[in-house]
């Protein structure tokens, strides 16, 4: 139980997520924020698979899953159906997708729904790989990270390109609200979902989701790693509200080494590679400061 959040649970026990799974904590917080009058749409992925083994369900809200890439399109259908019946204002629609379904295979469906002006909130829980299929590289995998399809070989060592700037890409569609969050700051995540649901059109929240198996760390470090990601500037917490950029937490800008060394997926990194990542993070922080100052 997290102080100050509603006691009512909508993602309940019985699911089969790994102990200490970051995404399972995200599910609890975002459904608490959305509340009872919410319809959930889920892309295929870890949280979908662990939560609905027929004939059981871990969801105490109406929930629908179609395929890997079509959650946003199904949500468009729900939006239109409720609108046609004069019930659109009675319910929230919350779409949940992992990074594979959001950054990659379902990106077109999400972009299309934004373009149509359909109203729902999309939460991407990002564990930076196709974790459900055994940890393969996705468009969200960070630079040099190990995944099952970017192994540490003699010629090529890990993932050779940094992750897509998904929040900027979504923000470029001129949506009213985008934000980032982590479970190290649960109230921030809770409040951002509440806020997102108020806006017209598609609102988008990108949540970093530590994965014990994929990132290779002990299951009691999930919150700690979420906080380290923010403290080192590897993952910024911010929101863009009607074009206005606002940093939610000012990072301490601790050395990225602290974050990288805590995870087995970066265990192979040389000092030079760590320095390179530090340089990118520093540059990003400078860019971000320009945006903060321009507001």
């Amino acid at each position, binding site marked *: 139980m997290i102080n100050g959040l509603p006691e009512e649970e909508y993602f309940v026990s019985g699911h089969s997520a790994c102990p200490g799974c970051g995404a399972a904590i995200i599910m609890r917080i975002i459904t608490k924020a959305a509340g009872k009058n919410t319809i959930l749409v889920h892309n295929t992925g870890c949280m979908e698979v662990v939560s609905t083994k*027929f004939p059981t369900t871990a969801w105490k809200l109406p929930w629908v899953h179609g395929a890997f890439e079509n959650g946003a399109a199904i949500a468009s259908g729900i939006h239109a159906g409720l609108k046609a019946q004069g019930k659109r204002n009675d319910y929230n629609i919350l779409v949940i997708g992992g990074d594979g379904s959001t950054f990659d295979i379902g990106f077109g469906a999400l972009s299309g729904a934004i373009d149509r002006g359909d109203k729902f909130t999309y939460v991407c829980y990002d564990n930076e790989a196709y974790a459900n299929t055994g940890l393969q590289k996705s468009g969200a995998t960070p630079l040099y990270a190990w995944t099952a399809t970017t192994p540490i070989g003699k010629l090529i060592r890990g993932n050779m390109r940094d992750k897509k700037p998904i929040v900027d890409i979504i923000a470029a569609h001129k949506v009213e609200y985008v934000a980032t969050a982590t479970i190290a700051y649960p109230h921030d995540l809770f409040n951002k979902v509440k806020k997102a649901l108020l806006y017209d059109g598609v609102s988008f929240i990108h949540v970093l989701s530590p994965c014990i198996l994929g990132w290779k760390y002990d299951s009691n470090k999930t919150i700690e790693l979420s906080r380290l990601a923010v403290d080192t500037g590897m993952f910024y917490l911010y929101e863009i509200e009607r074009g206005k950029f606002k940093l939610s937490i000012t990072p301490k800008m601790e050395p990225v080494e602290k974050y990288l060394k805590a995870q087995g997926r970066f265990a192979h990194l040389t000092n030079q590679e760590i320095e390179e990542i530090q340089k990118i993070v520093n540059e990003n922080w400078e860019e971000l400061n320009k945006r903060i100052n321009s507001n």
Partner: protein
Amino acid sequence: MKRIGEASAAVAEAVKLCKPQVISIYPITPQTHIVERLSELVNNGELKAEVIRAESEHSMVSAIIGASLTGSRVFSATSSQGLALAHEVMHIVSGMRIPAVMAIAARALSAPINIWGDHSDVMTSRDTSWIQLHCKNTQAAFDTIIQAYYIAEKIKLPVMVILDGFTLTHLAEPVDVAEQKKVDLFLPPLKMNYTLNPEKPISFGNVAFPTDYMEIKHKQAEAMVNAEKIIKEANNKFYKIFKRKYGDGLIEIHNPKASKVIIASGTTAETCKTLKDFCVIHLRCFRPFPYESIRKALEGKKEVYVIDRSYSYGAGGPLWLEVCNIFKEAKSRIMGLGGRDITLDSIRKAVSSKEKEMWVDKL
């Protein structure tokens, strides 16, 4: 009231009379006239419906899942590459027992790219567990849309209403347009057994393990078999109200006494009827496959020619393969691929040879 218009307009008119609440659309030749006409009807206030202008056919079909689960009646339409792109979702729609109706302007598949009519797209979709009804002319297109909603909503399986691309979609014929009150009498309002409702939260699209998957799929297989009865029932009920019927609903038999038979689907069957000494069976319903109706129709027949407008590579014409289960000496005639004209001369050629398989008119 009779109106002259192309079959695409007749489909749009029939859809309007069925009062769908959500229409999900994406353009593709030769289907586009249907969704353009529907867009006009909505924008002119003649049809009260939400239109989802999807960014792909994959999303277009996905959206009807969401809309249907809110309890809305849905309509969609596509063709060829669009149906192929949506293929994954077609299985999900039927597996979730969504009573969707979709018009298909049947067209060839790439490569080579070809925008003209054949049945490659719908035959590739035959195992998606959508009921497949072929239309022989413009009036049939109009009537079949209305019957399709009755069938889909009663058996809780989706229905494809198939029009031959260009040959039918773009063919203008007089159509007897039904009155709204008669359509209302025929088609009761949609009642979904389960919807996405926070008052009664249910999960749709769960993971079924090997312990449960077969049972769920067997129920679906049973529903598909039972659909035969519902298709016949729709045909009979439709006749009582509108005085038009399509054989037993599954097949239509022209000149039943002739001992030589041609079996074909869609507009090709109409062309075949001009051959005087042949019995022509129009296969209206390809899925579920009407084995019993065909078995009865072929009793005592001497020669059977089956015309396919598509091909299962390494096996043969898909319709012929089915007919062989009943009449194993049936001859296969592959015709009209990629919009190649099926003329009376080509049909004469097709039935004058004793070859087992023949690609008619191929140079």
